[in-house]
């Protein structure tokens, strides 16, 4: 029996196991998928939790509901991978040997990187919304908050879903307006990037959004520490920003077992060929989704677009051929902008987000780099598509490679 082991039953792992299971001959292949958590999170939904738009049942479902019968499901922590011996060592020293390994263990937050983050004010005036606990704690807090200085800060890049902090502050603008306390809230977006938008066309079309929504921007800001006593954040070049409420996106890293395996870069992401999705250092290991060190965004849509390429390349490798399919870095993101509207961006390694219509030229129904109600519906409807189509490994009616069709160059 040959063995395929998939590490991680999140978005990428679940999609791939559902695609591969019907294709790999059951008499020849044993597929095992490993994850440490029973619950599957719809992470794009976490954005809506603090604003009381989604509840727990909208964003959490059991992982096993999405894994095919006939696949061995192992709920366990991973201690390390021994790539030279083609095996995975789980917690309690259980061993999983493999012929092929797919790493899809994603990215997580590490709160320890920023000094003072988990001090006195943690989950009292400092919150994250990238974890389920953080999102719900913030929801409770916002129910009673009467206003003040709200700072949204990204600690460093790369992060999962780079647009989510912007979406958060746009939704905050809407949320406080609805509650009639918008003038009591000072919204401040603080980013290590050179701007809220950094690409030329996006900046041209959306650059004035923060001004229009009365949101302050501080760019090129690398947070060094948080002074819990004086309620301020401090950067490496000693710029201080006061807050009454700090919503932070801390440093994102790959899972620690990758460091224990000696397989990761300085943030525990696995060096991966950006086109074939094969691990740079091991011919029988493929990497998908947030766990890879690719120069693409870390987003579910990227994992979805990778899935067809990965399928082809894994099957090529199994047949002793060189991986033939090439991933182009395609990402597609709805950006919630508040007041029932959203923006859609579609791009890849080579091409920045461009204006136009998606997916059908002229018709859309989604508009690129513009705020429309259709884009907001798209974002909200996507939750259904995620649980019912995407996770099951079924195809969405859009091509994996980014297309220039419908775009205005």
């Amino acid at each position, binding site marked *: 029996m040959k063995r395929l082991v998939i590490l991680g039953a999140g978005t990428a792992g679940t999609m791939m196991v559902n695609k591969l299971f019907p294709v790999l001959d059951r008499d020849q292949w044993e597929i095992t998928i490993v994850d440490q958590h029973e619950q599957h999170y719809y992470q794009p939904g976490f954005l809506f939790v603090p604003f009381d738009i989604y509840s727990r049942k909208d964003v959490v479902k059991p992982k096993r509901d999405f894994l095919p019968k006939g696949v061995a499901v192992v709920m366990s922590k991973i201690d390390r991978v021994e790539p030279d011996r083609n095996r995975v060592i789980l917690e309690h020293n259980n061993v999983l040997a493999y012929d092929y390994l797919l790493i899809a263990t994603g990215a997580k937050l590490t709160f320890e990187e920023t000094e003072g983050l988990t001090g006195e004010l943690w989950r009292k005036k400092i919150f994250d919304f990238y974890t389920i606990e953080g999102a719900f704690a913030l929801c409770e807090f916002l129910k009673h908050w009467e206003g003040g200085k709200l700072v949204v800060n990204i600690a460093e890049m790369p992060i999962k879903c780079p647009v989510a902090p912007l979406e958060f502050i746009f939704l905050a603008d809407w949320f406080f307006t609805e509650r009639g306390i918008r003038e009591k809230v000072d919204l401040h977006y603080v980013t290590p990037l050179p701007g809220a938008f*950094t690409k030329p066309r996006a900046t041209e079309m959306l650059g004035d959004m923060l001004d229009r929504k009365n949101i302050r921007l501080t760019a090129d800001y690398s947070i060094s520490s948080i002074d819990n006593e004086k309620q301020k954040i401090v950067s*490496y070049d000693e710029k201080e920003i006061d807050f009454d409420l700090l919503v932070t996106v801390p440093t994102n890293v790959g899972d620690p077992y990758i460091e224990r395996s000696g397989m990761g870069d*300085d943030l525990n992401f696995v060096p991966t060929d950006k086109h074939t999705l094969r691990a740079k250092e091991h011919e029988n290991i493929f990497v998908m989704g947030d766990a890879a060190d690719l*120069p693409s965004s870390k987003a579910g849509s990227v994992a979805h677009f990778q899935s067809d390429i990965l399928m082809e390349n894994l099957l090529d490798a199994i047949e002793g051929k060189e991986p033939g399919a090439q991933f182009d870095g395609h990402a597609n993101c709805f950006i919630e902008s508040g007041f029932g509207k959203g923006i859609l961006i579609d791009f890849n390694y080579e091409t920045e987000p461009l204006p136009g219509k998606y997916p059908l030229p002229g018709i859309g129904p989604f508009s690129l780099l513009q705020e429309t109600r259709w884009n907001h519906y798209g974002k909200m409807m996507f939750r259904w598509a995620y649980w019912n189509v995407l996770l099951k490994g079924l195809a969405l009616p859009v091509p994996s490679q980014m297309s220039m069709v419908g775009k205005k160059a």
Partner: protein
Amino acid sequence: MAAKEINGKSIELDGDGYLADPSQWDEELAKALAQEIAIGELTDDHWKVITYVRKEHEAGTALTMRKVAKQSGVDMKGFYQLFPDGPLKKASYIAGIPKPKSCV
């Protein structure tokens, strides 16, 4: 493709306004670019960063603030002191490599 005059030479620029043709870079150009964006005289520490980012770019590595702060020989505080307000951008510009990549 845009161009500008530096030290009497015409330097070609890419779409972001960064050096388009790597063969046009040399230390003299670096010094002139540094003056242009008000970084001033380049010290040994400046050169540590410039050498590091050029090396990583050549190797095809995506540059991050963290990498420079951990591997160039200059830490994060130092990096901001040498190239205030946008250190990675400024260092890349002076080093004659493309603007650091980001997604949106």
